[in-house]
């Protein structure tokens, strides 16, 4: 008999049945992505002025947008899980704090939150520094990228918490009971039984959150982060060709979001669970 050598708790992906329908849809969306990439290449080659110039100009912004999004998203995954578990906690205090956090954050527009972190939060820190006479805090200045990541994380974690919560709640109660009846603690049962199943269920909405975050990251352009959008505005100010600039910026975002959506679908298929 074959003995598995991987860890007891590793998740082995299940090959999903490839029916024709799914395969065709898969291909179609890849084609759309290819078309957009092709369009960008075509414009850059046939009309390299201004299109290729725009790309060269916003190039470092692409990196800023992507890294801000990815770093924020990784933090969102962690903070969202903690808050989501808090929302499910039996402790009134933990439950109360996480519920208030989620409700408050979801009631304030992201743009306003970003403006708060960048423009208002530093003055709070400075005020604290002044009253406690701490030199380092008195002269505190906001780091644009840092504050942008903080703002995006704080906001998206609230939404992510609700996704985690719904995912965990969708796992039948019998799973937790079976795990507990085997002597596993609540934490161990979550870690090895509930979360691995919940993660598969929440993968589509989590993927959507990543794509939303990628798009919403364009808001950080108003708080001094030189992302794609901000670089596009700068290019516009210098050259004043709005149609070409914003078309290219839109195509760049579209490439990134379509590609992300393909990756999410791919992972989804890889980890599909038969019940």
């Amino acid at each position, binding site marked *: 008999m074959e*003995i598995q*050598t991987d860890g007891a708790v590793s998740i082995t992906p299940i090959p999903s049945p490839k029916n024709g329908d799914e395969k065709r849809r898969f291909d179609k969306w890849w084609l759309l992505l290819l078309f957009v990439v092709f369009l960008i290449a075509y414009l850059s080659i046939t009309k390299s002025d201004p299109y290729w110039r725009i790309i060269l100009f916003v190039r470092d912004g692409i990196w800023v947008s992507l890294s801000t999004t990815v770093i924020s998203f990784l933090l969102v995954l962690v903070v969202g899980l903690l808050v989501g578990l808090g929302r499910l906690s039996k402790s009134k205090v933990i439950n109360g704090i996480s519920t208030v956090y989620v409700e408050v954050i979801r009631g304030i527009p992201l743009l306003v939150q970003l403006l708060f972190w960048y423009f208002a939060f530093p003055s709070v820190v400075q005020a604290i520094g002044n009253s406690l006479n701490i030199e380092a805090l008195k002269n505190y200045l906001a780091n644009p990228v840092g504050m942008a990541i903080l703002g995006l994380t704080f906001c998206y974690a609230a939404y992510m918490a609700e996704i985690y919560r719904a995912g965990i709640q969708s796992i039948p109660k019998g799973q937790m*009971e079976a795990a507990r*009846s085997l002597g596993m603690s609540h934490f161990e049962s979550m870690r090895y039984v509930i979360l691995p199943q919940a993660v598969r269920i929440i993968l589509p909405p989590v993927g959507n959150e990543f794509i939303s975050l990628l798009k919403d990251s364009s808001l950080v352009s108003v708080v001094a982060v030189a992302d794609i959008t901000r670089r596009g505005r700068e290019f516009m100010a210098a050259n004043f060709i709005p149609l070409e600039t914003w078309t290219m910026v839109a195509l760049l975002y579209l490439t990134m979001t379509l590609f992300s959506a393909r990756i999410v679908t791919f992972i989804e298929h890889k980890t599909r669970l*038969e019940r």
Partner: protein
Amino acid sequence: MEPIIHIENISKKFGALEALHNVSLDVQKGEVVMIIGPSGSGKSTLLRCINRLEKYDEGLIIVDGIPLNTAENINAVRTEVGMVFQQFNLFPHLSVIDNIVLAQRVVRKRNRAEAEKVAIDLLEKVGIPDKAHARPGQLSGGQQQRVAIARALAMNPKIMLFDEPTSALDPEMIQEVLDVMLNLAKEGMTMVVVSHEMGFARAAAHRAILMDGGQIIEEAPPEILFTNPKEERTRLFLSKVL
């Protein structure tokens, strides 16, 4: 002799509904106790109180000398008490063998080779060694329930609780699960079984208990309880299920 399960006057309410009312029961080591009774009579609740999946409001339960009151005691008791559910509750994201290996590693701290050896031996014992690497979803109901029994046995429990283990099964699969349970009983496992399988009761049970309205109405050896019950409520219930 000291009973391995001692239940003393426990009561349990769900809101206004009294699911258990002053229930007392002693189970000796090696004894097989059957619990029967109408739906909603508190059978599952009683079983679930024994490993504290359900908290009781009043009374006392002592399992293998350990009173069920503090958190450490509860985890200690849970590792001694195996439970088999009506809906199997296998972990669908793990292969059959990993279902059996998981808690051995996490709770019993066995290494993988050791845990797998136990799992494979148990799968042989329940008659499905060839399904070790299948997914639970690929097994029939009867096979899933046998894996669930193996999973519980892997923890080397002193007591096994069965909550309607064959109720969710197609009729042709009931016997394969009962056979596994019969073997366990023969080996001297202490078992508390909620089930209406009279054949199993006659073959294996030392005692049968009728519950109704959250109370124990009558208890007797199965052949007596089934054929010549004292209580009217027992007679009424039996006339419906037999």
